[in-house]
Protein backbone atom coordinates (compact mmCIF):
# COMPACT_ATOMS: atom_id res chain seq x y z
CA UNK A 1 0.00 0.00 0.00
CA UNK A 2 1.66 3.19 -1.17
CA UNK A 3 -0.03 5.44 1.34
CA UNK A 4 1.43 3.53 4.28
CA UNK A 5 4.88 3.38 2.78
CA UNK A 6 4.88 7.16 2.44
CA UNK A 7 7.42 8.83 4.69
CA UNK A 8 5.79 10.37 7.73
CA UNK A 9 6.71 13.24 10.00
CA UNK A 10 7.83 12.39 13.56
CA UNK A 11 4.83 11.86 15.81
CA UNK A 12 4.26 14.20 18.73
CA UNK A 13 4.81 12.54 22.08
CA UNK A 14 1.48 12.25 23.93
CA UNK A 15 3.28 11.65 27.21
CA UNK A 16 5.52 14.72 26.93
CA UNK A 17 6.96 15.77 30.29
CA UNK A 18 5.94 19.39 30.77
CA UNK A 19 8.49 19.94 33.57
CA UNK A 20 11.34 19.22 31.20
CA UNK A 21 9.99 21.58 28.56
CA UNK A 22 11.89 24.78 27.77
CA UNK A 23 11.65 26.78 31.06
CA UNK A 24 11.79 30.13 29.23
CA UNK A 25 8.72 29.33 27.16
CA UNK A 26 5.45 31.17 27.66
CA UNK A 27 3.55 28.19 29.05
CA UNK A 28 -0.14 28.17 29.85
CA UNK A 29 -2.64 25.45 30.68
CA UNK A 30 -6.10 25.76 29.20
CA UNK A 31 -9.10 23.61 29.98
CA UNK A 32 -11.49 22.99 27.10
CA UNK A 33 -14.76 21.45 28.20
CA UNK A 34 -16.55 19.42 29.49
CA UNK A 35 -19.25 21.98 28.75
CA UNK A 36 -18.02 23.70 25.63
CA UNK A 37 -20.16 24.29 22.54
CA UNK A 38 -17.49 22.99 20.20
CA UNK A 39 -16.78 19.70 21.92
CA UNK A 40 -20.00 18.13 20.59
CA UNK A 41 -21.10 16.93 23.98
CA UNK A 42 -19.23 16.52 27.21
CA UNK A 43 -15.59 16.03 26.31
CA UNK A 44 -12.80 17.61 28.28
CA UNK A 45 -9.31 18.20 27.00
CA UNK A 46 -6.48 19.88 28.86
CA UNK A 47 -4.33 21.95 26.52
CA UNK A 48 -0.76 22.94 27.38
CA UNK A 49 0.05 25.99 25.31
CA UNK A 50 3.34 27.60 24.40
CA UNK A 51 2.14 31.06 23.42
CA UNK A 52 -0.73 30.16 21.17
CA UNK A 53 0.55 26.80 19.99
CA UNK A 54 -0.54 23.58 21.66
CA UNK A 55 2.39 21.46 22.79
CA UNK A 56 0.47 18.76 24.63
CA UNK A 57 -3.17 17.72 24.83
CA UNK A 58 -4.54 15.44 27.53
CA UNK A 59 -8.12 14.29 26.88
CA UNK A 60 -10.49 13.23 29.64
CA UNK A 61 -13.55 11.40 28.35
CA UNK A 62 -16.07 9.68 30.58
CA UNK A 63 -18.43 12.52 31.50
CA UNK A 64 -21.32 10.60 29.96
CA UNK A 65 -20.46 7.11 31.16
CA UNK A 66 -23.90 5.55 31.60
CA UNK A 67 -22.91 1.94 32.18
CA UNK A 68 -24.69 0.63 29.10
CA UNK A 69 -22.56 -2.50 29.00
CA UNK A 70 -23.46 -3.29 32.60
CA UNK A 71 -27.14 -2.63 31.92
CA UNK A 72 -27.09 -4.96 28.91
CA UNK A 73 -25.85 -7.77 31.13
CA UNK A 74 -29.10 -7.50 33.08
CA UNK A 75 -31.47 -7.47 30.10
CA UNK A 76 -32.60 -10.20 27.76
CA UNK A 77 -31.64 -10.21 24.10
CA UNK A 78 -34.96 -8.78 22.92
CA UNK A 79 -34.82 -5.93 25.45
CA UNK A 80 -31.45 -4.48 24.51
CA UNK A 81 -32.39 -2.79 21.21
CA UNK A 82 -33.96 0.37 22.73
CA UNK A 83 -31.01 0.75 25.10
CA UNK A 84 -28.32 0.88 22.43
CA UNK A 85 -30.35 3.47 20.49
CA UNK A 86 -29.03 6.05 22.90
CA UNK A 87 -25.36 5.21 22.34
CA UNK A 88 -24.80 6.86 19.00
CA UNK A 89 -27.80 9.13 19.05
CA UNK A 90 -27.10 10.57 15.62
CA UNK A 91 -27.37 7.19 13.90
CA UNK A 92 -29.58 4.98 16.10
CA UNK A 93 -30.56 2.64 13.25
CA UNK A 94 -26.97 1.47 12.88
CA UNK A 95 -26.63 0.80 16.61
CA UNK A 96 -29.69 -1.40 16.59
CA UNK A 97 -28.41 -3.28 13.59
CA UNK A 98 -24.99 -3.86 15.14
CA UNK A 99 -26.24 -5.51 18.31
CA UNK A 100 -29.02 -7.42 16.61
CA UNK A 101 -26.61 -8.85 14.04
CA UNK A 102 -24.40 -10.09 16.86
CA UNK A 103 -27.39 -11.65 18.61
CA UNK A 104 -28.61 -13.29 15.41
CA UNK A 105 -25.16 -14.73 14.77
CA UNK A 106 -24.98 -16.05 18.32
CA UNK A 107 -28.51 -17.46 18.44
CA UNK A 108 -28.51 -18.73 14.86
CA UNK A 109 -31.63 -16.80 13.81
CA UNK A 110 -32.36 -16.37 10.10
CA UNK A 111 -33.37 -12.95 8.84
CA UNK A 112 -35.82 -12.86 5.90
CA UNK A 113 -34.68 -11.12 2.69
CA UNK A 114 -37.18 -8.29 2.98
CA UNK A 115 -35.85 -7.40 6.43
CA UNK A 116 -32.26 -7.48 5.18
CA UNK A 117 -33.19 -5.21 2.30
CA UNK A 118 -34.96 -2.83 4.66
CA UNK A 119 -31.98 -2.76 6.99
CA UNK A 120 -29.65 -1.78 4.18
CA UNK A 121 -32.05 0.92 3.04
CA UNK A 122 -32.54 2.32 6.55
CA UNK A 123 -28.80 2.30 7.19
CA UNK A 124 -28.14 4.33 4.07
CA UNK A 125 -30.88 6.88 4.77
CA UNK A 126 -29.60 7.19 8.34
CA UNK A 127 -26.11 7.79 6.99
CA UNK A 128 -27.45 10.73 4.99
CA UNK A 129 -29.04 12.21 8.12
CA UNK A 130 -25.91 11.70 10.19
CA UNK A 131 -23.58 13.27 7.65
CA UNK A 132 -25.97 16.20 7.24
CA UNK A 133 -25.85 16.84 10.97
CA UNK A 134 -22.06 16.61 10.88
CA UNK A 135 -21.87 19.07 8.00
CA UNK A 136 -24.04 21.58 9.81
CA UNK A 137 -22.19 21.43 13.11
CA UNK A 138 -18.78 21.40 11.44
CA UNK A 139 -19.62 24.55 9.50
CA UNK A 140 -20.78 26.12 12.76
CA UNK A 141 -17.56 25.11 14.53
CA UNK A 142 -15.60 26.99 11.95
CA UNK A 143 -17.31 30.20 12.93
CA UNK A 144 -20.62 31.90 12.42
CA UNK A 145 -19.89 34.05 9.41
CA UNK A 146 -17.12 32.00 7.88
CA UNK A 147 -17.94 30.18 4.68
CA UNK A 148 -21.61 29.97 5.39
CA UNK A 149 -21.34 29.07 9.07
CA UNK A 150 -24.73 29.15 10.72
CA UNK A 151 -26.52 29.25 7.38
CA UNK A 152 -25.21 25.80 6.52
CA UNK A 153 -26.31 24.58 9.96
CA UNK A 154 -29.84 25.85 9.37
CA UNK A 155 -30.04 24.34 5.89
CA UNK A 156 -28.67 20.98 6.99
CA UNK A 157 -31.13 20.74 9.84
CA UNK A 158 -33.97 21.53 7.45
CA UNK A 159 -33.01 18.52 5.34
CA UNK A 160 -32.45 16.34 8.38
CA UNK A 161 -35.96 17.09 9.63
CA UNK A 162 -37.33 15.76 6.35
CA UNK A 163 -35.47 12.49 6.88
CA UNK A 164 -36.69 12.26 10.47
CA UNK A 165 -40.22 12.66 9.15
CA UNK A 166 -39.61 9.70 6.85
CA UNK A 167 -38.54 7.58 9.80
CA UNK A 168 -41.48 8.82 11.83
CA UNK A 169 -43.84 7.60 9.11
CA UNK A 170 -42.14 4.23 9.20
CA UNK A 171 -41.65 3.62 12.91
CA UNK A 172 -43.72 6.20 14.76
CA UNK A 173 -40.67 7.73 16.40
CA UNK A 174 -38.61 10.73 15.47
CA UNK A 175 -35.45 9.72 17.14
CA UNK A 176 -35.09 6.43 19.00
CA UNK A 177 -36.77 4.02 16.66
CA UNK A 178 -36.61 0.58 18.28
CA UNK A 179 -37.53 -0.87 14.89
CA UNK A 180 -35.04 -3.73 14.67
CA UNK A 181 -35.35 -6.90 16.60
CA UNK A 182 -33.65 -10.26 16.80
CA UNK A 183 -34.60 -11.87 13.51
CA UNK A 184 -36.03 -8.97 11.56
CA UNK A 185 -37.95 -5.72 11.75
CA UNK A 186 -40.93 -4.57 13.77
CA UNK A 187 -42.44 -2.07 11.36
CA UNK A 188 -43.27 -2.66 7.74
CA UNK A 189 -42.98 -0.04 5.03
CA UNK A 190 -46.22 1.98 4.84
CA UNK A 191 -47.99 2.69 1.55
CA UNK A 192 -46.55 5.58 -0.41
CA UNK A 193 -43.33 5.64 1.55
CA UNK A 194 -41.11 4.98 -1.46
CA UNK A 195 -42.42 8.06 -3.26
CA UNK A 196 -41.72 10.14 -0.15
CA UNK A 197 -38.16 8.83 0.00
CA UNK A 198 -37.62 9.75 -3.64
CA UNK A 199 -39.00 13.22 -3.10
CA UNK A 200 -36.92 13.95 0.03
CA UNK A 201 -33.65 12.46 -1.18
CA UNK A 202 -34.02 14.02 -4.60
CA UNK A 203 -34.42 17.43 -3.04
CA UNK A 204 -31.41 16.86 -0.78
CA UNK A 205 -29.14 15.70 -3.60
CA UNK A 206 -29.99 18.86 -5.54
CA UNK A 207 -29.18 21.03 -2.59
CA UNK A 208 -25.81 19.44 -1.74
CA UNK A 209 -24.37 21.25 -4.76
CA UNK A 210 -25.44 24.52 -3.19
CA UNK A 211 -23.77 23.68 0.12
CA UNK A 212 -20.59 22.70 -1.64
CA UNK A 213 -20.59 25.97 -3.51
CA UNK A 214 -21.21 27.77 -0.22
CA UNK A 215 -18.35 25.96 1.49
CA UNK A 216 -15.77 26.31 -1.28
CA UNK A 217 -15.03 29.64 0.28
CA UNK A 218 -11.39 30.78 0.61
CA UNK A 219 -11.70 31.14 4.40
CA UNK A 220 -13.19 27.67 4.77
CA UNK A 221 -10.35 26.24 2.68
CA UNK A 222 -7.77 28.12 4.67
CA UNK A 223 -9.13 26.82 7.96
CA UNK A 224 -9.28 23.20 6.83
CA UNK A 225 -6.51 22.59 4.29
CA UNK A 226 -3.41 21.12 5.89
CA UNK A 227 -4.97 21.26 9.38
CA UNK A 228 -4.90 18.15 11.53
CA UNK A 229 -3.07 15.77 9.22
CA UNK A 230 -3.38 12.11 10.28
CA UNK A 231 -1.04 9.81 8.40
CA UNK A 232 -2.20 6.37 7.33
CA UNK A 233 0.12 4.46 9.65
CA UNK A 234 -1.10 6.32 12.73
CA UNK A 235 -4.71 5.95 11.63
CA UNK A 236 -4.38 2.18 11.29
CA UNK A 237 -2.54 1.69 14.58
CA UNK A 238 -5.06 3.79 16.46
CA UNK A 239 -7.93 1.87 14.94
CA UNK A 240 -9.49 4.81 13.13
CA UNK A 241 -12.16 3.61 10.74
CA UNK A 242 -14.74 5.02 8.40
CA UNK A 243 -14.32 8.45 6.81
CA UNK A 244 -11.30 9.27 8.98
CA UNK A 245 -9.35 6.26 7.70
CA UNK A 246 -10.40 6.82 4.12
CA UNK A 247 -9.40 10.47 4.30
CA UNK A 248 -5.91 9.28 5.29
CA UNK A 249 -5.55 7.29 2.09
CA UNK A 250 -6.54 3.76 3.16
CA UNK A 251 -9.11 2.18 0.89
CA UNK A 252 -11.20 0.31 3.45
CA UNK A 253 -14.97 0.15 3.76
CA UNK A 254 -16.70 -2.71 5.52
CA UNK A 255 -19.73 -2.37 3.26
CA UNK A 256 -17.56 -3.46 0.35
CA UNK A 257 -14.77 -5.41 2.09
CA UNK A 258 -16.71 -7.55 4.55
CA UNK A 259 -20.25 -7.29 3.16
CA UNK A 260 -23.22 -7.84 5.42
CA UNK A 261 -26.97 -7.36 4.81
CA UNK A 262 -27.30 -7.15 1.03
CA UNK A 263 -24.27 -4.98 0.35
CA UNK A 264 -22.71 -7.77 -1.71
CA UNK A 265 -25.49 -7.30 -4.26
CA UNK A 266 -24.58 -3.66 -4.79
CA UNK A 267 -21.81 -4.05 -7.32
CA UNK A 268 -20.78 -0.49 -8.04
CA UNK A 269 -20.44 0.79 -4.47
CA UNK A 270 -18.20 3.81 -4.68
CA UNK A 271 -15.76 4.20 -1.80
CA UNK A 272 -14.41 7.72 -1.45
CA UNK A 273 -10.68 7.90 -0.70
CA UNK A 274 -8.58 11.01 -0.21
CA UNK A 275 -4.87 10.97 0.48
CA UNK A 276 -4.22 14.22 2.35
CA UNK A 277 -5.53 13.21 5.78
CA UNK A 278 -6.45 16.77 6.76
CA UNK A 279 -9.80 18.33 7.71
CA UNK A 280 -10.56 19.20 4.09
CA UNK A 281 -10.01 15.58 3.03
CA UNK A 282 -12.39 14.38 5.72
CA UNK A 283 -14.97 16.91 4.55
CA UNK A 284 -14.59 15.76 0.94
CA UNK A 285 -14.90 12.08 1.84
CA UNK A 286 -18.11 12.71 3.76
CA UNK A 287 -19.68 14.75 1.00
CA UNK A 288 -18.96 12.00 -1.53
CA UNK A 289 -20.44 9.45 0.89
CA UNK A 290 -23.50 11.62 1.25
CA UNK A 291 -24.14 11.51 -2.48
CA UNK A 292 -23.35 7.81 -2.66
CA UNK A 293 -25.76 6.97 0.16
CA UNK A 294 -28.51 8.97 -1.52
CA UNK A 295 -27.87 7.11 -4.78
CA UNK A 296 -27.95 3.70 -3.08
CA UNK A 297 -31.08 4.51 -1.10
CA UNK A 298 -32.96 5.62 -4.19
CA UNK A 299 -31.81 2.44 -5.91
CA UNK A 300 -32.89 0.17 -3.06
CA UNK A 301 -36.23 1.73 -2.24
CA UNK A 302 -37.72 0.71 -5.59
CA UNK A 303 -37.12 -3.01 -5.41
CA UNK A 304 -37.84 -4.12 -1.87
CA UNK A 305 -38.68 -7.84 -2.12
CA UNK A 306 -42.04 -9.07 -0.89
CA UNK A 307 -42.23 -11.36 2.08
CA UNK A 308 -42.28 -11.41 5.86
CA UNK A 309 -40.28 -8.79 7.75
CA UNK A 310 -39.52 -10.98 10.72
CA UNK A 311 -38.54 -14.61 10.90
CA UNK A 312 -40.84 -16.94 12.81
CA UNK A 313 -42.98 -15.41 15.52
CA UNK A 314 -42.47 -11.73 16.19
CA UNK A 315 -39.99 -11.41 19.00
CA UNK A 316 -41.73 -9.73 21.86
CA UNK A 317 -41.19 -11.83 24.93
CA UNK A 318 -38.02 -11.55 26.92
CA UNK A 319 -36.42 -14.91 27.40
CA UNK A 320 -37.73 -16.27 24.13
CA UNK A 321 -34.18 -17.17 23.17
CA UNK A 322 -31.59 -19.17 25.01
CA UNK A 323 -28.03 -18.89 23.84
CA UNK A 324 -25.31 -21.49 24.23
CA UNK A 325 -22.00 -20.38 25.65
CA UNK A 326 -19.87 -18.75 22.98
CA UNK A 327 -18.27 -15.58 21.71
CA UNK A 328 -18.84 -13.65 18.50
CA UNK A 329 -17.58 -10.42 17.02
CA UNK A 330 -19.57 -8.48 14.43
CA UNK A 331 -18.52 -5.18 12.89
CA UNK A 332 -20.60 -2.93 10.67
CA UNK A 333 -19.88 0.36 8.94
CA UNK A 334 -21.62 3.31 10.55
CA UNK A 335 -21.19 6.95 9.45
CA UNK A 336 -18.33 7.18 11.94
CA UNK A 337 -16.58 3.92 11.18
CA UNK A 338 -16.62 0.36 12.37
CA UNK A 339 -19.16 -0.23 15.12
CA UNK A 340 -18.26 -3.56 16.60
CA UNK A 341 -20.10 -5.77 19.05
CA UNK A 342 -18.15 -8.34 21.01
CA UNK A 343 -20.68 -10.64 22.60
CA UNK A 344 -19.91 -13.27 25.18
CA UNK A 345 -22.93 -15.45 25.89
CA UNK A 346 -23.19 -17.51 29.01
CA UNK A 347 -24.79 -20.90 28.57
CA UNK A 348 -27.25 -22.73 30.78
CA UNK A 349 -29.03 -20.59 33.33
CA UNK A 350 -27.47 -17.42 31.96
CA UNK A 351 -28.71 -18.13 28.43
CA UNK A 352 -31.30 -15.32 28.23
CA UNK A 353 -28.94 -12.43 28.82
CA UNK A 354 -25.50 -11.60 27.43
CA UNK A 355 -22.73 -12.50 29.83
CA UNK A 356 -20.68 -9.56 28.57
CA UNK A 357 -21.40 -7.15 25.75
CA UNK A 358 -18.52 -4.99 24.64
CA UNK A 359 -19.40 -2.29 22.17
CA UNK A 360 -16.54 -1.04 20.04
CA UNK A 361 -17.37 2.60 19.39
CA UNK A 362 -15.64 4.20 16.40
CA UNK A 363 -15.70 7.61 18.09
CA UNK A 364 -13.57 6.46 21.03
CA UNK A 365 -10.80 5.56 18.61
CA UNK A 366 -11.34 8.84 16.76
CA UNK A 367 -10.83 10.81 19.96
CA UNK A 368 -7.70 8.84 20.83
CA UNK A 369 -6.07 10.69 17.94
CA UNK A 370 -6.31 14.00 19.81
CA UNK A 371 -2.95 13.79 21.68
CA UNK A 372 -1.19 13.02 18.41
CA UNK A 373 -2.81 15.66 16.21
CA UNK A 374 -3.42 18.69 18.42
CA UNK A 375 0.26 19.53 19.18
CA UNK A 376 1.56 22.12 16.74
CA UNK A 377 -1.82 23.69 16.10
CA UNK A 378 -3.47 26.76 17.57
CA UNK A 379 -6.58 26.53 19.73
CA UNK A 380 -8.89 27.62 16.92
CA UNK A 381 -7.50 24.83 14.74
CA UNK A 382 -8.09 22.38 17.58
CA UNK A 383 -11.79 23.19 17.41
CA UNK A 384 -11.79 22.58 13.66
CA UNK A 385 -10.00 19.24 14.10
CA UNK A 386 -12.38 18.13 16.82
CA UNK A 387 -15.32 18.99 14.58
CA UNK A 388 -13.86 17.07 11.66
CA UNK A 389 -13.42 13.94 13.81
CA UNK A 390 -17.21 13.85 14.34
CA UNK A 391 -17.21 12.33 17.84
CA UNK A 392 -20.51 11.39 19.47
CA UNK A 393 -19.94 11.36 23.20
CA UNK A 394 -22.82 9.00 23.87
CA UNK A 395 -20.98 6.23 22.13
CA UNK A 396 -17.52 7.25 23.33
CA UNK A 397 -18.46 6.94 26.98
CA UNK A 398 -21.43 4.58 26.70
Amino acid sequence: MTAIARARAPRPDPFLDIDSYDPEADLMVMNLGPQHPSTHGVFRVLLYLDGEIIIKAVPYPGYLHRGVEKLCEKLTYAQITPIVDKNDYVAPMLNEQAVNMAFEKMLGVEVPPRALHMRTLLAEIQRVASHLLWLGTFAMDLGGALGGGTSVFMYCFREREAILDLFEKLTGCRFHYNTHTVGGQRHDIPAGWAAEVHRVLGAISDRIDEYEAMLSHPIFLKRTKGVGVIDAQLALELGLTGPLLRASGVDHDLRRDAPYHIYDQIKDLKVAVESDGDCLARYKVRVVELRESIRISRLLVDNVPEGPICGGRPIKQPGQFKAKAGQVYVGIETPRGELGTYLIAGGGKMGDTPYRLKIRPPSLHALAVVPYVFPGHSVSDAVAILGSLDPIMGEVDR
Partner: protein
Amino acid sequence: MTPAEENAAREQAFRRLLRERFGVEGEADAPLPDDGVVVDRAHHVDLAKALHKAGWQLYVTCAATHFPAVPGKKPTDATTPECFEVATVLRTVGPGSHTARWRVKLAVGESLPTLVPVFVGADWQEREQFDLVGVHFEGHPDLRRLMMPEDWEGHPLRRDYAIDTPHAPWR
Protein backbone atom coordinates in the same frame (compact mmCIF):
# COMPACT_ATOMS: atom_id res chain seq x y z
CA MET B 1 -8.15 -12.63 -6.38
CA THR B 2 -11.76 -12.02 -5.43
CA PRO B 3 -12.54 -10.65 -1.96
CA ALA B 4 -13.88 -14.01 -0.80
CA GLU B 5 -10.71 -15.80 -1.86
CA GLU B 6 -8.60 -13.14 -0.21
CA ASN B 7 -10.52 -13.64 3.00
CA ALA B 8 -10.11 -17.43 2.84
CA ALA B 9 -6.37 -17.10 2.24
CA ARG B 10 -6.07 -14.81 5.27
CA GLU B 11 -7.98 -17.26 7.40
CA GLN B 12 -5.63 -20.03 6.24
CA ALA B 13 -2.57 -17.93 7.08
CA PHE B 14 -3.98 -17.07 10.50
CA ARG B 15 -4.59 -20.74 11.34
CA ARG B 16 -1.11 -21.76 10.23
CA LEU B 17 0.51 -18.95 12.18
CA LEU B 18 -1.32 -19.94 15.35
CA ARG B 19 -0.60 -23.64 15.01
CA GLU B 20 3.00 -23.48 13.89
CA ARG B 21 4.35 -20.72 16.08
CA PHE B 22 2.01 -20.18 18.98
CA GLY B 23 1.26 -23.65 20.21
CA VAL B 24 -2.43 -23.88 19.37
CA GLU B 25 -3.50 -27.48 19.18
CA GLY B 26 -4.96 -29.14 16.09
CA GLU B 27 -4.20 -29.81 12.43
CA ALA B 28 -2.62 -26.90 10.58
CA ASP B 29 -5.64 -26.26 8.32
CA ALA B 30 -8.46 -27.35 10.63
CA PRO B 31 -11.05 -24.63 11.39
CA LEU B 32 -10.68 -22.66 14.59
CA PRO B 33 -13.29 -22.95 17.35
CA ASP B 34 -16.31 -20.66 16.97
CA ASP B 35 -15.75 -18.83 20.20
CA GLY B 36 -12.18 -17.77 19.40
CA VAL B 37 -8.84 -19.37 20.05
CA VAL B 38 -7.13 -19.30 23.43
CA VAL B 39 -3.48 -18.24 23.37
CA ASP B 40 -0.97 -18.48 26.16
CA ARG B 41 -0.19 -15.26 27.98
CA ALA B 42 3.50 -15.43 27.02
CA HIS B 43 2.62 -15.41 23.30
CA HIS B 44 0.24 -12.43 23.43
CA VAL B 45 2.61 -9.67 22.28
CA ASP B 46 4.53 -11.89 19.85
CA LEU B 47 1.29 -12.93 18.17
CA ALA B 48 0.21 -9.31 17.80
CA LYS B 49 3.60 -8.42 16.33
CA ALA B 50 3.52 -11.32 13.90
CA LEU B 51 0.00 -10.47 12.77
CA HIS B 52 0.90 -6.81 12.37
CA LYS B 53 3.79 -7.78 10.14
CA ALA B 54 1.63 -10.21 8.16
CA GLY B 55 -1.00 -7.60 7.28
CA TRP B 56 -3.47 -7.36 10.17
CA GLN B 57 -2.80 -3.65 10.51
CA LEU B 58 -6.03 -2.28 11.95
CA TYR B 59 -6.40 -2.45 15.71
CA VAL B 60 -10.08 -3.14 16.32
CA THR B 61 -10.77 -3.70 19.98
CA CYS B 62 -10.00 -5.51 23.18
CA ALA B 63 -12.56 -6.77 25.65
CA ALA B 64 -11.85 -8.01 29.17
CA THR B 65 -14.32 -10.19 31.02
CA HIS B 66 -14.53 -11.18 34.65
CA PHE B 67 -15.48 -14.74 35.59
CA PRO B 68 -16.19 -15.04 39.32
CA ALA B 69 -15.46 -18.19 41.24
CA VAL B 70 -18.10 -20.87 40.64
CA PRO B 71 -18.68 -23.44 43.37
CA GLY B 72 -18.93 -27.05 42.26
CA LYS B 73 -22.31 -28.69 41.75
CA LYS B 74 -21.78 -31.12 44.60
CA PRO B 75 -20.10 -30.10 47.86
CA THR B 76 -17.24 -32.45 47.06
CA ASP B 77 -16.54 -30.86 43.67
CA ALA B 78 -13.70 -28.40 43.39
CA THR B 79 -14.53 -24.67 43.03
CA THR B 80 -13.65 -23.12 39.68
CA PRO B 81 -11.35 -20.25 40.63
CA GLU B 82 -12.00 -16.62 39.75
CA CYS B 83 -10.35 -15.60 36.47
CA PHE B 84 -10.24 -12.98 33.77
CA GLU B 85 -10.22 -13.23 30.00
CA VAL B 86 -8.99 -10.61 27.55
CA ALA B 87 -10.02 -10.87 23.91
CA THR B 88 -8.20 -8.92 21.21
CA VAL B 89 -9.46 -8.30 17.68
CA LEU B 90 -7.37 -7.20 14.69
CA ARG B 91 -8.37 -6.68 11.08
CA THR B 92 -6.82 -6.52 7.63
CA VAL B 93 -7.71 -3.56 5.46
CA GLY B 94 -8.94 -3.63 1.89
CA PRO B 95 -11.18 -6.10 0.04
CA GLY B 96 -11.90 -9.37 1.79
CA SER B 97 -11.16 -7.89 5.20
CA HIS B 98 -10.37 -10.65 7.70
CA THR B 99 -10.85 -10.47 11.45
CA ALA B 100 -8.32 -12.17 13.70
CA ARG B 101 -9.29 -12.60 17.31
CA TRP B 102 -7.83 -14.48 20.20
CA ARG B 103 -8.26 -14.72 23.95
CA VAL B 104 -5.87 -14.82 26.85
CA LYS B 105 -6.86 -16.31 30.19
CA LEU B 106 -5.57 -14.66 33.33
CA ALA B 107 -5.69 -15.79 36.93
CA VAL B 108 -6.36 -13.28 39.71
CA GLY B 109 -3.30 -11.07 40.21
CA GLU B 110 -1.83 -11.87 36.83
CA SER B 111 -1.25 -8.99 34.46
CA LEU B 112 -1.22 -8.97 30.68
CA PRO B 113 1.68 -7.47 28.70
CA THR B 114 0.51 -4.33 26.96
CA LEU B 115 0.11 -3.95 23.20
CA VAL B 116 0.90 -0.22 23.15
CA PRO B 117 4.38 -0.69 21.59
CA VAL B 118 2.76 -2.53 18.67
CA PHE B 119 -0.50 -0.59 18.28
CA VAL B 120 -0.77 2.84 19.88
CA GLY B 121 -4.55 2.47 19.73
CA ALA B 122 -4.33 -0.11 22.49
CA ASP B 123 -3.60 2.76 24.89
CA TRP B 124 -7.17 3.90 25.51
CA GLN B 125 -8.73 0.48 25.07
CA GLU B 126 -6.51 -1.00 27.75
CA ARG B 127 -7.09 1.95 30.04
CA GLU B 128 -10.83 1.44 29.63
CA GLN B 129 -10.64 -2.26 30.41
CA PHE B 130 -8.40 -1.54 33.41
CA ASP B 131 -10.93 1.02 34.61
CA LEU B 132 -14.07 -1.04 34.15
CA VAL B 133 -12.91 -4.61 34.70
CA GLY B 134 -9.71 -4.16 36.66
CA VAL B 135 -7.27 -6.13 34.53
CA HIS B 136 -3.74 -4.81 34.95
CA PHE B 137 -1.70 -4.24 31.79
CA GLU B 138 2.01 -4.63 32.33
CA GLY B 139 4.23 -1.95 30.79
CA HIS B 140 1.39 0.42 29.87
CA PRO B 141 2.84 3.95 29.80
CA ASP B 142 -0.14 5.69 31.39
CA LEU B 143 -2.50 3.30 33.12
CA ARG B 144 -5.17 5.58 34.62
CA ARG B 145 -8.93 5.41 34.82
CA LEU B 146 -10.59 6.49 31.57
CA MET B 147 -14.35 6.52 32.19
CA MET B 148 -14.89 6.74 35.93
CA PRO B 149 -13.66 9.59 38.15
CA GLU B 150 -10.11 9.20 39.46
CA ASP B 151 -11.30 8.57 43.02
CA TRP B 152 -13.82 5.85 42.14
CA GLU B 153 -13.68 2.66 44.12
CA GLY B 154 -14.08 -0.70 42.48
CA HIS B 155 -14.39 -1.83 38.89
CA PRO B 156 -18.01 -1.59 37.69
CA LEU B 157 -18.03 -4.26 35.00
CA ARG B 158 -16.97 -7.03 37.36
CA ARG B 159 -19.74 -9.53 37.83
CA ASP B 160 -19.77 -9.08 41.59
CA TYR B 161 -20.15 -5.27 41.42
CA ALA B 162 -23.74 -4.28 42.21
CA ILE B 163 -25.31 -2.31 39.36
CA ASP B 164 -26.97 0.14 41.78
CA THR B 165 -23.98 0.89 43.97
CA PRO B 166 -24.72 4.20 45.74
CA HIS B 167 -22.32 7.08 45.42
CA ALA B 168 -22.88 9.86 47.93
CA PRO B 169 -23.96 12.60 47.62
CA TRP B 170 -25.23 12.23 44.10
CA ARG B 171 -27.00 8.91 44.21
